[in-house]
């Protein structure tokens, strides 16, 4: 039933997406949610922002990037998993940001996309370094909790739980939840509202 793979680190070039509070409506406009699959979302990622011109996703130097560098509160707003699904179909396999919105973060974990946090100061350093030399390879190292780049490394935070799940390759939440077996029914039976409040809880 497991549907996971080991993700100890993500290596590749990075794309710099500057700006705070980048919401999931901007990442994938709602009109592209009229679909019963996630398959073609990659083509429309950041579509409306890109139509305004000068978007990093259209810059030649960032093509092929697999790591997205973001500022604060990336992925806020709608719970649409279509947002990380669109980003990963464009090529993103890991996110490094100052902070992430909670539902976006949870969606990423469920999809096997690590999100690591770095300080605002370190993000400035990373963004500047990548903008100067976009071809350089970054390593998002979950084990060492670091992001390495050509000029050195910065500390990157990821909670113990997700880190271990990625490193051990058991981030598939469904597999774990199913493992609880009968315990689910037992917990349900202990809740007064599941039996019409016939027995005290």
């Amino acid at each position, binding site marked *: 039933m497991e549907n996971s793979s080991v993700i100890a680190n993500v290596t590749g070039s990075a794309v710099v997406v500057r700006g705070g509070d980048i919401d999931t409506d901007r990442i994938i406009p709602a009109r592209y949610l*009229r679909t*019963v699959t996630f398959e073609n979302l990659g083509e429309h990622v950041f579509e409306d922002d890109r139509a305004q011109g000068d978007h990093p996703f259209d810059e030649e130097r960032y093509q092929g990037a697999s790591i997205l560098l973001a500022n604060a509160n990336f992925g806020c707003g709608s719970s649409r998993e279509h947002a990380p699904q669109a980003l990963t179909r464009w090529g993103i396999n890991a996110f490094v940001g100052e902070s992430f919105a909670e539902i976006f973060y949870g969606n990423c974990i469920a999809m096997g996309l690590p999100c690591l946090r770095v300080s605002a100061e370190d993000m400035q350093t990373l963004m500047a370094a990548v903008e100067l030399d976009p071809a350089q390879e970054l390593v998002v190292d979950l084990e060492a909790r670091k992001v390495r780049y050509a000029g050195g490394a910065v500390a990157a935070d990821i909670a113990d739980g997700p880190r271990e799940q990625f490193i051990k390759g058991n981030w598939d939440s469904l597999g774990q939840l199913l493992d609880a077996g009968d315990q689910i029914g037992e917990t349900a039976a202990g809740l007064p509202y599941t039996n019409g*409040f016939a027995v005290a809880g």
Partner: protein
Amino acid sequence: MGKTLLHKAWDQHTVRQLPSGQTQLFIGLHLVHEVTSPQAFQMLRERGLKVRMPERTFATVDHIVPTDLTERPFIDDLAEQMMVAIEQNTSEFEIPLYNIDDKRQGVVHVIGPELGLTQPGMTIACGDSHTSTHGAFGAVAFGIGTSQVRDVLATQCLAMDQLKVRRIVVNGSLSEGIYAKDVILHIIGQLGVNGGVGYGYEYAGSVIEAMSIEERMTVCNMSIEGGARVGYVNPDQTTYDYIKGRPHAPKDFDRAVEWWNSMASDADADYDDVVEINGADIGPTVTWGITPAQSVGIDQALPELGDYADAERVVVQEAFDYMDFKPGQKLAGTKVDVAFIGSCTNGRLSDLREAAKVARGRKVAAGVRALVVPGSQEVKAAAEAEGLHEIFEEAGFEWRGAGCSMCLAMNSDKLQGRELCASSSNRNFKGRQGSPTGRTLLMSPAMVAAAAVSGEVADVRGLVN
């Protein structure tokens, strides 16, 4: 030391601790809609799984449905395909569907409470970030993504990180012309769009206690706009009076109330943070920017860049540029092109009543397109029973069918070009209302009605007193 409602509900719904450190949490009610579920059902098929508790799962259609021409097949092929998908999925997996031709259909966060499905002490999940709405009943309600919809379908559980609790106490009282929407916009303005990350918000204090359940829904609805995935109000007599007699209300109501009372936060509960807000400080509040925290009182000037910390100035400048507003200006008097009354935030009967008070005997200003979209078919029927539709139509508003409509513009209700919309919805993000360059001003439904009849942003207090 006592416990909060969130912690009590968490403990009672805990199936086990997962190796990841997360909690496997039982979900008492799963609400499903057409947009975030088709991929989840497909994942179930791929893994050969069934829906674990179809009796705790209810589906409706709201996001993509047209609110004018609702005959099938829908004009929009993509929307029609999504309708067919949810019909097939709910039929195959044996889940009740409140479809477009069902009197119980409506915005998922409006119909859950109407049907009496939403109850205190319960955990609730839905593939929509505004699921926090159900917290108005003292439920712990999570917005989730599609992989998590799959998880709940297959196991009736979620893997969740424990939340901290911030108690937001709104003291005093609200003056005339100030609504629940103003309260939550004010709170988000104070605490910021990511102030709530990692927290559940418990709303309390005399202002919240005095609110109807529908007003509490408006407040809890926008918790996520402040970064908090969960927001709730402790259940009380107002809550119980609302639930009693509804189709899914518990038969043994007295015993239910006993348990619900026991789930409320203890007087000596331990909070991770407490914030106090004075109700008297809250005026009619309108957003001016591109995040729900960028708001001002109607009689206040827009902020100066210097009012913000360095790190925030880039976003603030981006907001001024996008909205075409200037620091120091006032919003009152700004011409609007569109007025939208509806959404899971403000599409309930009491919202329509307040807006109708303003619209009564007045006309929508020339050049303004105004629409009222009831949150559910039940809201629509109740509003029509008291003649609200006539008030709106006589004033020049379009009176529509139930759905999400122009809150997120997945149907044909969209802004055009740079149009500026006075909206009772919940998000003023760039492009949110369907035009990539469209602009949104969030405000209470009464304020939207005031803007519609004035043709410009206006202080509703001048129209209702």
